């Protein structure tokens, strides 16, 4: 369970972030079309905060996580890391500053060198990126492996490790650098449910106290249990930000995502004007004046004081009281 203190100091600020990709057709000469993978995302992460980025495949969550780290260039908008503009830096300038901002990949086996042991992976990171002397790197690397329960596996090669152990080595490499920000792209993907919790416990429990973390996930119970805040994405936009310890998801799409058995499944058709979820939305018919068809909803505060902790982009949503139902039941799937 999440038990980390947050401060008000922002680590990441995204302002009006957009990313377009040109996608070709089936044949080389087929006309290309523009895909808005990220379409106007504003987001802030503060020190100590763990934020889940959730959404269906293709919603833009992985692109946002890559944009934050400078692995993609935005088409427009701004990325600020620790008060410094990040997207306008050259790649050489970013490389010199990248050390505190680390990435945990989805495919642990693909990220590991098949010829290196667990300890060698961590030592190499500490010497090449962290500038440690080899003796220091060995001591620090062993300390980190010990914290992650891998001390006895120090000499194991990736193929000799279980899926969970491989994930832990990728975590050890990143955490040994004492990062300021960790972006973890589905770090538990492909693991059995009972092993997922322990991998997240190792990641979030060993983050430096003031580090922020973005957890990209498909698993709503992970988002609920391990994150301060959940950011729900649809068609490249943020449609809801919610602290699941205090409230239930309110956007009709977010409700389906957190409890897919609650009603009919969306067919997945997205509208090109107005609210993209309109074709599948059960609430659109109740909104007066055809606003859902005409106007793209923007994120607006929801809750008793409009405190900003819960924001929803939906025309069917007005300011209202927080529900009294037990939020711990949310996203139990």
């Amino acid at each position, binding site marked *: 369970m999440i038990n980390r203190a947050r401060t008000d100091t922002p680590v990441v600020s995204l302002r009006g972030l957009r990313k377009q990709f040109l996608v070709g057709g*089936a044949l080389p000469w087929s006309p290309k079309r523009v895909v808005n993978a990220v379409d106007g995302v504003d987001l802030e992460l503060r020190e100590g905060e763990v934020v889940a980025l959730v*959404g*269906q*495949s293709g919603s833009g969550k992985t692109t946002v996580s890559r944009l934050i780290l400078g692995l993609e260039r935005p088409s427009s908008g701004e990325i600020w890391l620790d008060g410094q503009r990040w997207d306008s830096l050259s790649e050489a300038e970013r490389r010199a500053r990248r050390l505190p901002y680390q990435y945990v990949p989805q495919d642990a086996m693909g990220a590991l060198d098949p010829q290196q042991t667990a300890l060698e992976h961590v030592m190499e990171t500490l010497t090449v990126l962290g500038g440690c002397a080899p003796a220091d790197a060995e001591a620090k690397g062993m300390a980190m492996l010990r914290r992650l*329960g891998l001390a006895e596996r120090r000499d194991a090669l990736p193929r000799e490790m*279980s899926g*969970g*152990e491989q994930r832990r080595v990728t975590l050890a490499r990143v955490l040994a650098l004492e990062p300021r920000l960790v972006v973890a792209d589905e770090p538990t*993907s*492909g693991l*059995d*449910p*009972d*092993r997922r919790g*322990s991998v997240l416990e190792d990641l979030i429990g060993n983050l430096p106290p003031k580090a922020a973390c973005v957890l990209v996930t*498909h698993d*709503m119970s992970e988002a609920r249990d391990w994150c301060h805040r959940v950011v729900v994405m649809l068609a490249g936009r943020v449609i809801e930000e919610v602290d699941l310890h205090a409230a239930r998801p309110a956007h009709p799409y977010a409700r*389906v*995502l*957190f409890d*897919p*058995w609650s009603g009919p*499944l*969306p067919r997945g058709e997205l509208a090109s004007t107005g609210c993209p979820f309109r074709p599948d939305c059960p609430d659109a018919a109740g909104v007066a004046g055809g606003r859902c068809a005409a106007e793209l909803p923007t994120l607006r505060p929801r809750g008793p004081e409009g405190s900003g902790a819960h924001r929803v982009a939906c025309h069917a949503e007005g300011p209202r009281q927080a529900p009294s139902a037990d939020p711990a039941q949310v996203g*139990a*799937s």
Partner: protein
Amino acid sequence: MSALVEMRGLGIRSAHRTLVEDISFDIDAGKVTALVGPSGAGKSLTARATMCVLDVAPGLFAGSLRYPAHDPAIDWFEGVRGGGARAQAALLERSRVLRGAYLTYSPQAASSALNPGRTIGQQLAMAIGRRAQPPADLGEEIRRVLADVGLSPRAAASLPGELSGGMCQRAALAIAVAPKPRLVIADEPETGLDPVLRRAVVELLVEVCQVHGAGLLLISHHEDTVQRLAHAVIRLPGRSGGGER
């Protein structure tokens, strides 16, 4: 209605420990039977044993397996219990006639179920060829099976690499039901999917099995899926002593 599978007292051990012990269950025709249990409980091992695939040595030490809807008199584990790898290999060969006809298997990853060098239509034709009664018009039957899983007839001419992940998943499902099996064994079809797609895939699997009159053995980690869809649940106990993290 006779059961499709009657497993009694299944016991399998490796060289070091007992992997599953005293597992008994029936799988009924036209029903969804879920196979659940914690990691390492032996779900995949039990599912493979249900297909007469025993690939652990010394392996099977107890149990009987009958397919009453095929031939209630045959205990397929007869002569295999305690017989080690050689007896298990002989069983694998002897039971070949069942797999792909009486029962089919839908693996976790659609990509591993499809041959990348053959079109979906060619692969479906092979699967339909496993039926006892071949259809009068193969092309029409391929179109019909594709329609059952929500794919257009154009998918028949596509190689797996030309289809999206979701379409490949549907194609793999079409191949699993195309032989008109009595039982489909689906090994964690929800793995790696987002919640909406997870429900869509499992519902499609159940619907297609019901359209084809097949029973379904569904290995799942998701309690909500099991509660919503399963008619019967086989719960395997966790292995004592814990496992790796």
